[in-house]
């Protein structure tokens, strides 16, 4: 490239006009609709910008970040019965503790807890430690995303690999099977979520009917989307169902890159099927595996459509996610500044995942 330029230096200037005419529209659109909003978002996160407001926007420093990320620890001693001097206990014999609200709302005596709300607590002996957060809903959403990622990464990767091995045996009609397994991927998430919402219905849902038939009525109907402990699992099952075909296709492409001679040589050396899988297939899929880990993790943190359609973040915030929390604050509450702050944190998480992946790839190839 450098050689071309040094031979014909005049070309450097002569292509500028056509270059800008041809590339200009795209560059301008990216500037206006991507790069502009990106930097505007960073700026908004330091202000009190609202979607519609009569008051001028003001710079507020790190206030949004403190509200979003601040944590606090409140140790509580049990309530003491003044008459007997004993700890107060409820009917079940559990110790009674003062409400955390008594401290977080008492700005005068406990200024260090002002602006915090209870997130969760841990009991240790006769003491209760209440973990407070500036925005417990955000913390719960973040934990939900991590939980989703932690389950979906191994399950979807494993399923994708298994499917790929099944449809790559050289059987007649395997393209047909691949296509069928991939069909959910091309179906809109909104449609898929609506159909599954019906499938998950407590009284008239197909999933409960199938569970009943398979267990001969031993398992009671599950309220898939209505119970805090179950709802996230329901979303996970549906998401794995929808996405596994994608990983399958990526693995199939990876499998086809592995030279057949390696397997033949291993057979001559007397390797069995498992040895071939562990020492040829898996190492051969290394780069595909890294790409899959990266894309599933990023997709896990982008979780949104399913949540909005199926549970609306509920029950009780059990399926809220970072993007859902951002949507709730930015659109429903019209607090653009706070939503932008969530977006900045969300972006940093994505960058971090990319860096980890890059580190992993670099180490492997080194």
């Amino acid at each position, binding site marked *: 490239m450098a050689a*071309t330029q040094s031979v014909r230096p005049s*070309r*450097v*200037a002569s*292509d*500028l006009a*056509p*270059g*800008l005419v*041809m*590339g200009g*529209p*795209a*560059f301008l659109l*990216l500037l206006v*609709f*991507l*790069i502009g909003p990106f930097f*505007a*978002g960073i700026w908004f996160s330091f202000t009190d910008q609202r979607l519609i407001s009569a008051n001028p926007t003001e710079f507020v420093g790190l206030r949004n970040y403190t509200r979003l990320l601040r944590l606090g620890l409140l140790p509580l001693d049990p309530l003491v019965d003044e008459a007997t001097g004993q700890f107060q206990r409820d009917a079940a014999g559990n110790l009674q503790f003062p409400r955390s609200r008594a401290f977080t709302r008492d700005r005068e005596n406990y200024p260090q807890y002002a602006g915090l709300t209870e997130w969760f607590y841990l009991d240790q002996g006769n003491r209760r430690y209440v973990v407070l957060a500036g925005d417990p809903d955000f913390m719960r959403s973040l934990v939900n995303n991590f939980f989703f990622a932690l389950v979906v990464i191994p399950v979807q990767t494993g399923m994708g690999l298994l499917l790929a091995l*099944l*449809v790559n*045996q050289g*059987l*007649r009609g395997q393209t*047909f099977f691949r*296509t069928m397994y*991939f069909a*959910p*991927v*091309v*179906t*809109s*998430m*909104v*449609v898929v979520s*609506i*159909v*599954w919402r019906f*499938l998950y219905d407590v009284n*008239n849902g197909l999933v409960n*009917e199938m569970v009943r038939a398979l267990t001969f009525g031993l398992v009671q109907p599950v309220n898939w989307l209505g119970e805090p402990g179950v709802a996230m699992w329901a979303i996970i099952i549906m998401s794995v169902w929808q996405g*596994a075909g*994608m990983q399958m*296709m*990526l693995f199939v*492409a990876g499998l086809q890159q592995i030279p057949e001679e390696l397997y033949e040589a291993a057979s001559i050396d007397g390797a069995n099927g498992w040895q071939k899988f562990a020492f040829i297939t898996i190492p051969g899929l290394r780069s595909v595996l890294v790409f*899959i880990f*990266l894309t599933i993790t990023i*997709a896990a943190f*982008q979780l949104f459509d399913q949540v909005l359609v199926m549970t609306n973040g509920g029950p009780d915030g059990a399926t809220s996610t970072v993007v859902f929390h*951002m*949507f709730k604050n930015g*659109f429903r509450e019209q607090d*653009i500044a706070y939503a*932008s702050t969530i*977006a900045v944190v*969300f972006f940093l998480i994505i*960058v971090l995942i*990319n860096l980890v992946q890059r580190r992993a790839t670099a180490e492997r190839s080194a």
Partner: protein
Amino acid sequence: MAARNTTPLAPAPRSFGATVRLALRYVPLLILIFFFTFPLVFMIVSSFKPGNQQIFADLRSWRAFLPVGDLTLDNFKFVFENSNFPRYLLNSVSISAITILLSLTVNSLAAYALSRLRWRGQKLILSLIIATLIIPGQATVMPLLLMVASLPSLSFADGLALTRGWLDTYHVQILPFVASAFSIFLFYQFFQEIPRDLDEAALVDGASRFRIFTDIIVPISGPVFASVSILTFIASWNSFLWPIMTVQSDELRPVMVGLQFFFQRDVQWGQVMAYTTMITLPVLIFFFAFQSAFVKSIATTGIKG
């Protein structure tokens, strides 16, 4: 349809044991077909069933997946006649079509300028565009919402006038999604593989840069144009978060948002399934027809749905 695969078609002499073993290898594959398609089959089949009562009753057996009982087209008729579905469909088709056309033009030209022309700042812009690939759309959606709410807009309601705000328009659903760093990147990669001798020869013949693009580059770049079309179509057709936030009027809604209409009162699942079938089946048929192109382009993103 799947059944024909269970028996090997090859007439070559094969022992009975080998045939059984081959058939057994298909068993997991067939079970998996059921696993991956049952919600879609259920959706399509239910759209032909007359009411909630029959749909619920059929759930207790295999009938849920079979087109049995009183089959009717009433659900489809209701969706067409009593909802704004035709309008939503027209909206989505036009929005997708215009987005694809603009996107192909703008992004391929930009990639050509980056790949083939030599100009000052080209390297910088290329690395900037690649850097933006890491920004997920959801990270910019909130400031973008505020921005489109205050952009100037031409209004033709009472004569030509300049109004403020892009909310509740068609172009707010199109223009932000025309330029795409990922599409530019795909075009760029493809163009880099095309031998430069082709351009050089045409340049010597006196062809302009633009002529070289339209007459030489575009005709041999079919696959990448197909990939970008498919990706842009899927993103546009399935868009949900953005139109929810930017479009209020019923007449401007795309299909995914219009679906809300059926959840306002008692949900008639047959109608919902008819609606979702009509917005899904064309995409699925298109996918089955061009499955290798679909798979290749979607797999490049690695992102589902």
